[in-house]
């Protein structure tokens, strides 16, 4: 039996073994962000550990469905080791493609994008990136 008709293999693997699940205590080198999708009741929290302009590590928690858990896992994996500016460029479409989300689960990609940007917005000098991105 194939695992599922509802979930892609990538989504399912992230759900079974989520990467970077957890919470860190607040610290000077850590930024935190949160996002919600009121319609589905999902809540994602994302934290980034920074060294200068680089994201050394990331973690997340999510109260949400299988795809939301997969999105948090994938995004925190993707941002590790990247520059803050690179992270700002990650968008929901990329998350969606990477995980092969079902069409009705695209909101999970947006949730992860929102959570990431909410954390990035706490970074020093992030206002600049944010304004560039939003044109």
């Amino acid at each position, binding site marked *: *039996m194939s*695992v*599922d008709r*509802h*979930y892609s293999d990538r989504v*399912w693997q992230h*759900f*079974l*073994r*989520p990467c970077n*699940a957890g*919470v860190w205590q607040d610290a000077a080198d850590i930024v935190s962000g*949160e996002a919600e999708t009121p319609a*589905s*009741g*999902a*809540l*994602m*929290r994302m934290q980034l550990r920074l060294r200068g302009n680089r994201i050394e590590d990331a973690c997340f*928690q*999510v*109260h*949400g*469905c*299988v795809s*939301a*858990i997969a999105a948090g896992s994938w995004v925190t994996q993707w941002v590790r080791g990247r520059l803050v500016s690179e992270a700002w460029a990650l968008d929901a479409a990329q998350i969606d493609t990477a995980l092969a989300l*079902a069409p*009705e*689960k695209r909101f999970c990609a947006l949730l992860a994008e929102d959570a990431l940007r909410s954390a990035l917005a706490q970074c020093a000098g992030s206002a600049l990136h944010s304004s560039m991105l939003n044109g």
Partner: protein
Amino acid sequence: MSERSDCIYLDHAATTPVDPAVVQAMCGYLGAEGVFANPASATHADGWAAADAVERARAQVAALINARPQEMVWTSGATEADNLAIKGAAESYCGRGCHIVTARTEHKAVLDSCRRLERAGYRVTYLTPGREGLIDPAQLAAALEADTILVSLMHVNNETGVVQDIDAFARITRERGIILHVDAAQSAGKLAIDTPRLGADLISLSAHKLYGPKGVGALYVRHRPRVRLSAQMHGGGHEQGLRSGTLPTHQIVGMGHACRLAGERLAEDSDRMARLRRRLEERLCAMPGVLVNGDRERRAPHIVSLTFQGLDGEALMAALTRPSARSALRLAVSSGSACTAASREPSYVLRALGRSDAEAEASLRFSVGRSTRAQEIDAAAERVRESVERLRALSPRWTRASAQHGQGAAAAEA
């Protein structure tokens, strides 16, 4: 077959496997060597043999609910029985009135039949049960109007297992000459049904909930005093004109056999099921943030519905029904929502009991059966505990609330 051994089936309220003895009995009524003739063929001995088999089965089904054989009408299942009872009675008694009373927690077959009648000009009152899922007889009495012709309330709720006080409802309806229809699909074979004492005028039964085949059911139609129904299926005038269509002899024989077995085993089966269900309930309720849906006492032996706070229902269902990182074991259970990846529709039954959308979605119905073993209950409980704890550890709502207030209080907030 190896996959089956990795699955614990706790969805007997959805359907049961056909008992091997029932399968064997049915096989004698299909092929050329068996009794395959049309039971309506009165011109030859083969037809008579088929008709005899149908009548033996009718007596077996009637015996399960202590009714008379001639009061049983074959249908394709409980859904058709519900349709025939409700639409048939409404049409037949429309000269007397056009008001019907049912409950918001009824099966869709009842609710959709009532909706259909509303479009045809009937008025329907939908009772809301209390938080424990019970309809108060006084509430029913208050809902009756001068032109109420029919009350339809189920015996055992299919989602929560709550047992309604049908005797009390019947005392109220009989006094006023109102027809009482009872969907007993979930109670037959689990609770003793003594029809003369129960006082219902129409009772829907299903074969596949009690180890018989899918595709066959029956409607009890009281003869004394006689309940009149308009046929909903027209044709050859079978079943005293109430339900036309060639009788499926093998299905009917299967239902008869299954009802006989259910009757013989009723006391033993329900004791065992109740013990297993309680064992599961105790194991799972030992965790914080687990709520039992429906009354704790007035419950059928085989069903328990639980709400798990502090997690997402879809994720829980996915975690349990597919192999996990730690375990190949899968559970076959029902969720508190008509949930596919595409649509999330929280159970209207749990919503009617006051659960929120999120709580209804994070609910599971476990239903045990004849083949369920204590060891399976323990393994299932452990599998649920592991999944619930894993998902709660991922939930910012749950971890935050339990960090602030401890786990017990977290339940209230998450």
